[in-house]
């Protein structure tokens, strides 16, 4: 069974972190259709977060067609996500490396790059929530 | 709630029961000895012509225990008020546990009712038991000493200690409820109880029943004293002691004539000329007084002893009920 982690400093909403972790687990093959997700009770007993947050995350996943609740039994994985293709990963790694070289050439230091990266991630996840 | 009150009270109950048992055992053993002593000396002293010696010997027996048992009955109601009644509610306020107790599934009124009720009943029972034991133990002593209305003795025999104990408990609890601190509550219980007890003894008990009057002749045994109270005024006084009304409570004794007048100065200066230490000729003085005057004694007869006991018990129980009612009103007030 998957075990959730929480990064309170990341600025990403808790329920989104849960959704992302389920999706990543699906992408990496850790979760497969038929596996059961931990109950809200189990999650909050470990993470000490509001149960509604867990329920909201599971509802989002259900809307995406990735999980479905079985009354009285729990929430189970029903969908799949495309596994991350190593070739695809390699391509994005190359394009990111090129970008970084260009940023260095333009005079951006590591802190500037960090700031740009964080802003981009925040904006992207905010867009995702809307 | 009753079970919970018992849960909190268990330890104190056990200690009290143990203490009472010890007292009971001591009194039982010594009491039987005392009764035996009485039966073998005082009861038959008339035949042996040694009554005064037998009586003196008897009344001196177990002296320390006599004092202790009277003291115990005197102190127990006060101790109940200070150490049971006062801390019962005040400690909850001091420790903040009232915030735990008043947010369970019982209302404040029920919480108070059980604590007040159980405590008052327990206090009454303890005092009643103690009084029973001590009254039994000293029954012959009391008979010989023959002064049941003595202000000290009256309060440590019979049924009045029950009333005192219930009242002291209620007073302590009320003080704890009002002051919310244990020490001020204990102090208030102490002062309040002593004050009320003294007030009732001095100002209520004598007036519970209208005293009777009786005329007695003046004899040589009558303790009359003649005195010059101020220049040119001579008066005749009579001590209330030694008046032969058995088991009675003598309020006062006056020397009066048929019309109710006291002897005049002129009569006394002729009938009882005074020397340095009183009348020069006491026998003649007494005879002349007896010719024209008699004793007018104001008293409560011995038969009124038990009615007065029940009356005073009723007074203190009523006071306890009033205090209880006040507590219920107080605890329901809007502001905590």
């Amino acid at each position, binding site marked *: 069974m998957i075990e959730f982690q929480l990064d309170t400093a990341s600025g990403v909403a808790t329920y989104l972190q849960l959704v992302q972790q389920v999706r990543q687990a699906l992408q990496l093959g850790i979760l497969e259709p038929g596996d059961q997700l931990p109950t809200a*009770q189990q999650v909050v007993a470990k993470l000490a977060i509001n149960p509604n947050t867990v329920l909201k995350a599971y509802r989002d996943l259900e809307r995406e067609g990735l999980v479905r609740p079985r009354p009285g039994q729990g929430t189970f994985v029903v969908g799949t996500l495309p596994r991350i293709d190593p070739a695809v990963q390699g391509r994005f790694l190359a394009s990111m490396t090129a970008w970084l070289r260009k940023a260095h050439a333009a005079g951006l230091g590591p802190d500037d790059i960090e700031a740009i990266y964080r802003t981009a991630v925040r904006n992207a996840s905010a867009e995702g929530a809307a | 709630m009753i079970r919970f009150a018992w849960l909190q009270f268990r330890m104190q109950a056990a200690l009290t029961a143990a203490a009472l048992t010890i007292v009971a055992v001591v009194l039982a053993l010594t009491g039987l000895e005392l009764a035996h002593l009485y039966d073998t000396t005082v009861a038959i002293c008339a035949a042996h012509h040694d009554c005064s010696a037998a009586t003196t010997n008897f009344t001196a027996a177990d002296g320390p225990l006599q004092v202790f048992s009277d003291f115990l009955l005197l102190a127990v109601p006060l101790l109940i008020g200070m150490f049971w009644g006062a801390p019962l509610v005040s400690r909850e306020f001091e420790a903040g546990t009232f915030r735990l107790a008043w947010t369970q599934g019982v209302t404040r009124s029920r919480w108070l009712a059980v604590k007040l009720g159980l405590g008052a009943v327990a206090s009454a029972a303890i005092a009643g038991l103690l009084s029973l034991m001590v009254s039994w133990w000293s029954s012959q002593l009391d008979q010989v000493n023959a002064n049941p209305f003595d202000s000290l003795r009256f309060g440590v025999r019979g049924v009045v200690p029950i009333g005192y104990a219930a009242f002291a408990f209620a007073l302590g609890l009320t003080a704890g409820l009002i002051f919310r601190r244990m020490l001020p509550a204990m102090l208030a219980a102490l002062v309040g109880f002593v004050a009320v007890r003294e007030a009732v003894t001095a100002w209520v008990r004598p007036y519970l029943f209208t005293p009777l009057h009786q005329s007695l002749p003046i004899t040589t045994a009558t303790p009359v004293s003649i005195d010059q109270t101020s220049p040119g005024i001579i008066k005749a006084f009579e001590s209330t002691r030694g008046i032969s009304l058995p088991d009675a409570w003598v309020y006062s004794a006056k020397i009066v004539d048929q019309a109710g007048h006291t002897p005049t100065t002129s009569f006394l200066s002729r009938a009882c000329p005074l020397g340095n230490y009183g009348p020069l000729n006491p026998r003649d003085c007494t005879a002349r007084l007896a010719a024209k005057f008699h004793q007018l004694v104001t008293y409560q007869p011995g038969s009124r002893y038990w009615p007065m006991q029940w009356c005073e018990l009723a007074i203190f129980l009523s006071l306890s009920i009033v205090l209880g009612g006040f507590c219920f009103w107080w605890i329901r007030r809007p*502001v*905590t």
Partner: protein
Amino acid sequence: MTAVIETNDLGKQYGRKWALRDCTLSIPEGKVIGLVGPNGAGKTTLLSLAVGLLTPTRGSITVLAGRPGDGPAQLEKVGFVAQDTPAYAGLSVGKHLLMGAYLNANWDQQLAKRRIDQLGLDLRQKAGSLSGGQRAQLALTMAIAKQPELLLLDEPLASLDPLARREFLQGLMEIVASHGISVMLSSHLIADLERVCDYLVLLVASHIQLAGEITELLATHHRLSGSRRDPRSLPSSHEVIEESHTDKQSTFLVRTDQPILDPAWTVRPVTLDELVLAYMGQAHNPRPGRRSALGVVS
């Protein structure tokens, strides 16, 4: 949706000082409510009024559609843990559970025992010798085992070390998940409550400054920065909560239901921490022309 706590112009006065004033709330059920505010703001007063330990000087309060403290049925519905978690020092843990069983009609002894075992508490240990964290857990167990519909906790984390805090919140959230009860817990630190709360009530200086669902609050507050401007030039739908200026730049914390369309602004979301601080600052230095019926989002 039924309200779990409803107040109307609620006020509590001591002598001449108002501990709580003009408090109007309607809190929906099934939430974990964070009652936040500095010390002395009135949090304990509000909680005490909700549980019936105090009665209002003005206005009214209704809890679970009943009057607080009004009879055993109402007292059973609300569980309370007071500040400093009072317990009877001379009674053992087991006797405290007995107390709960004797005094509450819906007491679940199995639940209580299970929790005590899970927490590793010794039934025979006297409450007076428990640590602060253990006493807090005992108090929470007693409040939970009576199976209330609402739990009120007054600064339950204040005297706990970080590990005890985490364990307390874990246990609390587990109960919320399994029993679906509403919880209101107070703290003067928003950081404690951020993880677990989905509804916020902010009390400063005896008045409600802010009340609403946290997602709603975060969605309607934004930090706008751009070139230096007068706050009055902002559209009327934007309520300015906080502003700061340099000679070239202005930053505003605004509250609005409308989307921010002006491209001249850099818009950043606001964290709960920033939001609370801004409103607390507002309370001490009120801006002119501020609406009085503020901050209440239903």
